[in-house]
């Protein structure tokens, strides 16, 4: 009886809430981290299929990376995403200091630079599609578009999330909820840079060789 009542009371407040208040935040960030690792497995599958299909045999006589990628343009995209991640680093430093305006400025910068990255990629792909170089052309290009566009879609959702956090921090300030969301968004945004380093090196640069 006493035990049942205790469990009921605990479930109302959260098992960790009463004595270890900060653990609710740690549980949420660890949960999101495990989601990010499963997301990374999706990329592992896409990298594996790209590694198999990026043989010139699978280009079916069509273009390969060397024909469609400009290495300096790809490096400009790399700089944009790395700088956007650095701007998010500013967000974390401002958050640590409790500086609301600093967090908002950092979020705005991270959004702007991330948007430039997405714009560069959209420009690159629209140029290719205009020339008839689409995913249906060959298995090689299917694997290329599947991998790079999955990353690009992650970036678009990341931008939506940054814009949402900008509005929430501006309207609500630093509450438990806005702070753990900022921590999760940090993981999500940094993760995109890690994936892009691999895309830039193994898809774009290795393909140019």
């Amino acid at each position, binding site marked *: 009886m006493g035990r049942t009542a205790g469990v009921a009371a605990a479930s109302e407040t959260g098992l960790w809430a009463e004595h270890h*208040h*900060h653990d609710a*935040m*740690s549980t949420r*960030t*660890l949960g999101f*981290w*495990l989601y990010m*690792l499963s997301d*990374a*497995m999706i990329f*592992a*599958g896409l*990298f*594996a*299929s790209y*590694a*198999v299909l990026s*043989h010139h*045999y699978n280009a079916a006589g069509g273009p390969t990376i060397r024909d469609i990628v400009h*290495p*300096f343009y790809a*490096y400009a995209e*790399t*700089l944009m995403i*790395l*700088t956007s*991640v*650095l701007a998010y*680093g*500013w967000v*974390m*430093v401002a*958050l*640590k200091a*409790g500086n609301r305006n600093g967090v908002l400025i950092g979020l705005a910068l991270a959004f702007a630079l991330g948007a430039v990255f997405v714009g560069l990629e959209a420009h690159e792909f629209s140029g290719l599609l205009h020339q008839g170089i689409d995913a249906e052309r060959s298995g090689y290009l299917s694997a290329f578009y599947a991998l790079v566009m999955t990353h690009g879609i992650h970036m678009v959702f990341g931008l939506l999330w940054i814009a949402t956090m900008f509005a929430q921090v501006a309207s609500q300030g*630093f*509450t*438990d909820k806005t*702070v*753990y969301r900022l*921590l999760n968004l940090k*993981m999500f945004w*940094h993760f995109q*840079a*890690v994936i892009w*380093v*691999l895309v*830039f*090196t*193994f898809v774009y*640069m*290795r393909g*140019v*060789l």
Partner: protein
Amino acid sequence: MAHDIHDPLKHPEVQIANGWGYVASYVLSALLMAGVLVVVVYPSFVAMASFALPAAAALAVLIQIVLLFQLGFSKTHAWTTISFLLIVPLFVIAVGLTIWMFNSLDARTMMAGLMH
């Protein structure tokens, strides 16, 4: 003390933020990727590519894991680090085994000669 526990900004995952670490990660990653660009673009360096590309990518990823994600064995990030280390073998199996299988495919099947 009670105030500290209920202030989300005092949470260890907020307080672990390290501005110089983020700057170092940015500079090193940008330089490593510039190095990859140079190796690929200038013919005199191309011979290094098969070694330099994986090495630069691995180093950049490692730098980002340590300086951006700040993985380590502190109490704050112990489980994050352990879950990451446990998933690394899955990456190796998913990507490495697939590449290995397909690389040796033409030697072991009727596709011999087709891929060249």
